[in-house]
């Protein structure tokens, strides 16, 4: 029993998620600068996104439209009138020392997202969806930790400053018990599918275009909800699950020892899987929110909202169900694919010629295991759907056994080339040369005369011993089925 499961046996968890999605608009939220990822630092900037004295923001209509579409897809109410607000705090990656965000008048409120977890449907309430601007990125140089503490120099790249950011906040999700970590992950995975289906963001967690904060609290059954912590720096689906597990386990330890949980921000560490305390909320800045006087209120025309609603694509759940039928997979298999964020990978693998079941097995078993070992997301592995399909073809053609195929795949992931190249380079092809294989079988029979006699006497099951011997002598590169046939052909 894991520590979080043990925690759930004594305490009820309540989780909440705040997800930030960088919109893929062509230009920034309040200026005309481009938003291309990975450009040279400080090349996609202008007086507005640098917050130069005198500059003024002008809201990007495409970003407002994208936010409303996200809100509609999440079954939210769309405000008929709302305002941007300034969130005031000093930080060098924020050019104006305030962030234009939304406070008590978000664009979208009160919706929900139904997600599939473990064969059940969990309805996650959506508190709000609002629009804000992203900050720049700070790089701390000279310190051991890469954090500001101890750094000798801090460099800021403002290319990201002003990129439109949508914040999606759930209502608290109680009652998920030991499944809380899985629910958290499933929510983020299925939200990601939803946002991707709208075509408003590339939602790539590894590039930071989708980021996640996780709120966790524990309470004893029949008692009021506990104090929650907010865990930041949760940057992959895997980390979402691990962060909730870690917080549940940690809080249970604190409570079991008679302590109290402090309301605070915590940081998740990918390497250790632990959370550590960040700044305490008690000393947190008073953001002094007030309506942004440089922008006029947003008043989306109801007609326009209606048009956007009518133009929404079919929900990913519907599409997933169609794929599931098409692929002939079970509910659980399909959910596993969705929650691993692997729908597109499997689609592409199937398109490249693999059967749905083979594609599912490779991605969710062998490759998921390798991704876990490497501590990365499935999508971050250096293997393409085309390679996976090619690998399966080699198995189907009898050139690789399942075991050999796994070795070849490790080589592909390690960057040694395509499956065919890795197979050739490492000499892993199944020995299919009849003469060579026949010689190996003859040698095995000669070396095990009493076993051979038993088979001749009708004890066919004993053939396994000779097959094993042949496989050993060929270094595993023989196909067990073919060897068995050869053995039986010679002795029966």
């Amino acid at each position, binding site marked *: 029993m894991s520590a979080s499961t043990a925690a759930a046996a004594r305490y009820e968890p309540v989780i909440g998620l705040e997800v930030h999605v960088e919109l893929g608009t062509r230009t920034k939220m309040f200026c005309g600068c481009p938003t291309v990822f990975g450009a040279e630092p400080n090349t996609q900037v202008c*007086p507005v996104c*640098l*917050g*130069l*004295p*005198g*500059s*003024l*923001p*002008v*809201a990007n209509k495409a970003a407002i439209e994208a936010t409303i579409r996200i809100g509609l897809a999440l079954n939210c109410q769309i405000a008929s009138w709302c305002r941007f607000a*300034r969130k*005031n705090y*000093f930080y*060098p990656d924020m*050019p*104006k*020392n*305030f962030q234009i965000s939304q406070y008590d008048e978000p664009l979208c409120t009160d919706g929900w997202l139904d997600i599939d977890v473990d064969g059940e449907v969990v309805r996650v309430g959506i508190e709000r969806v609002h629009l804000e601007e992203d900050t720049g990125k700070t790089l701390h140089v000279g310190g051991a930790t890469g954090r*500001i503490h101890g750094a*000798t120099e*801090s460099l*800021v790249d403002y290319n990201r400053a002003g990129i439109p950011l949508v914040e999606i906040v759930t209502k608290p999700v109680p009652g998920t018990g030991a499944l809380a970590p899985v629910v958290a992950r499933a929510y983020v995975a299925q939200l990601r599918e939803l946002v991707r289906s709208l075509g408003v963001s590339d939602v790539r967690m590894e590039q930071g275009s989708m980021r996640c904060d996780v709120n966790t609290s524990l309470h004893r059954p029949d008692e009021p909800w506990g104090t929650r912590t907010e865990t930041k720096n949760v940057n992959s689906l895997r980390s979402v699950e691990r962060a909730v597990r870690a917080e549940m386990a940690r809080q249970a330890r604190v409570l079991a020892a008679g302590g109290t949980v402090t309301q605070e921000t915590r940081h998740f560490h990918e390497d250790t899987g632990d959370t550590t305390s960040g700044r305490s909320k008690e000393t947190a800045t*008073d953001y*002094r*929110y*007030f309506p942004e*006087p*440089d*922008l*006029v209120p947003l008043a989306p025309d109801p007609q326009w909202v209606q048009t956007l609603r009518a133009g929404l694509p079919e929900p990913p759940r519907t599409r997933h169900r169609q794929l599931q039928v098409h692929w002939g997979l079970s509910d659980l298999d399909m959910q596993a694919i969705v929650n691993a964020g692997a729908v597109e990978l499997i689609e592409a693998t199937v398109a490249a010629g693999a059967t749905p079941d083979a594609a599912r097995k490779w991605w969710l078993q062998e490759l998921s295991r390798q991704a876990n070992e490497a501590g990365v997301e499935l999508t971050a592995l250096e293997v393409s759907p085309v390679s996976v399909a090619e690998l399966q073809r080699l198995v189907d053609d009898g050139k690789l056994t399942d075991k050999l195929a796994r070795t070849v795949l490790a080589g592909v992931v390690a960057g040694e080339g395509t499956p065919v190249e890795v197979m050739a380079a490492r000499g892993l092809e199944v020995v299919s040369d009849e003469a060579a294989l026949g010689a190996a079988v003859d040698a095995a029979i000669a070396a095990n005369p009493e076993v051979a006699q038993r088979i001749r006497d009708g004890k066919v099951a004993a053939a396994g011993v000779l097959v094993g011997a042949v496989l050993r002598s060929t270094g595993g590169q023989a196909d067990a089925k073919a060897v068995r046939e050869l053995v039986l052909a010679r002795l029966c």
Partner: protein
Amino acid sequence: MTEQGNRAAGPDADLTRWSAAELGRAIGAGEVSAEEVTRAHLDRIAAVEARVHASLHVDGEGALAAARSVDSRRAAGQAVGPLGGVPVAVKDVLVTRGIPTTCGSRILENWLPPYDATVVERLRDAGLVMLGKTNMDEFAMGSSTEYSAFGPSYNPWDLSRIPGGSGGGSAAAVAGCEAPLAIGTDTGGSIRQPGAVTGTVGAKPTYGGTSRYGLIAFSSSLDTPGPVARTVEDAALLHAVIGGPDPRDSTSIPAPVPDVVAAARQGASGDLTGVRLGLVKEFAGEGAEPGVSAAVRDAIEALTKLGAEVVEVSCPHFRYALPAYYLIAPSECSSNLARFDGVRYGLRVGDDGTRSLEEVMSLTRDRGFGPEVKRRIMLGTYALSAGYYDAYYGQAQKVRTLISRDFAAAFAAADVLVAPTTPFVAFPFGARTSDPYQMYLADLYTIPSNLYGGPAISVPCGLSEGLPVGLQVMAPTMADDRMYRVAAALESTVGLFTPPEL
């Protein structure tokens, strides 16, 4: 001591005495070159600036180059517009590409903006010649220029007195004939009050009628760029050049500026038949010096002789305007001025490798900002704090709504409202710096229009103790033309007010 006459109308040997309209006409007709006009003003600046200190930066080279460009365009047969080749001084709160812009503050000393404000761009596009940047109270906070980090400007009427503020530099430059035109910005009276105490015309357009893009924000919901001139027509001509919608300012009104030039010319004919002047009951006898009240009373009487009728209107919430303003403006300023932290541009203090980022930021802000700016940042930070927001900022916003309703009701009965611009004539240096509230009173009559957003103009109406007094004419939003008509009519009957020779 004063010559009330038609200095502006007729040709004078001294080009710096001409009105902008006359200069523009003469340049357009080839009677005088833009370069000559510019040189005359640069000479005047060289002669008097040491005593007036209207400017923080004079761009002689740039001005002459711009003037020559106008002359060559004219020589090539291109139209140069009614103000083509006419010099203009720009308040240092507006950013100018490659030309120092300090906002009257040490924190921006030596900063060179990489872009032009929309207003500046429109001046250039209309062929105006920018002479330089004028002095102001730091970040436009003050009523005397005594809070400029670079020393005050001096009132050409009496060099021992303040020229008003925050735009005292623009007003002093125009009154002292260093420029025929200047740009100011008005947040609580920063164009109109300096206009009143220097005997010049200063207009605050409808909020959103002139672009704020490139205006270094003090209070975003109030700041309004506008014209400073010696005649009402000149102010209207300049207003027409800088006004109108700007896609870079979301709060700019998507409609053209009313025809203020035509209105000024109509008013100059001296006929105000049927125009209803509203006298705000609550302003009567509140705080104005007797000499100011008397001059304003005489001016209103002069207007009635031109056919205007006087109606009394009640604006009961105007008494809350000053306190509401001193919550809204500092609140917005506390946020707007947060960006001045020494990280990206401007002054940086204490970055010697031993101090933390927070220490460098706070040292920079401590040394970079003057006392009035700090006072307002602290006021605003407090007013926006959790737990105080509703009682202060929220309450002030409600007052603002009530004041707008007062205006709406008043404009149902009157076409314009008239009042003194400021309660007192130019005061001696140091007279109001020890008690901030005494300084704040200078904007008692001007602030309501800012909170409401409507246009208002100050036009010279007489003298008190030998110093100029301004009449303020307030109009409904987007009815800027009305105030120009009334102001021009007054000017046609009381004439212009010229300070003694410097």
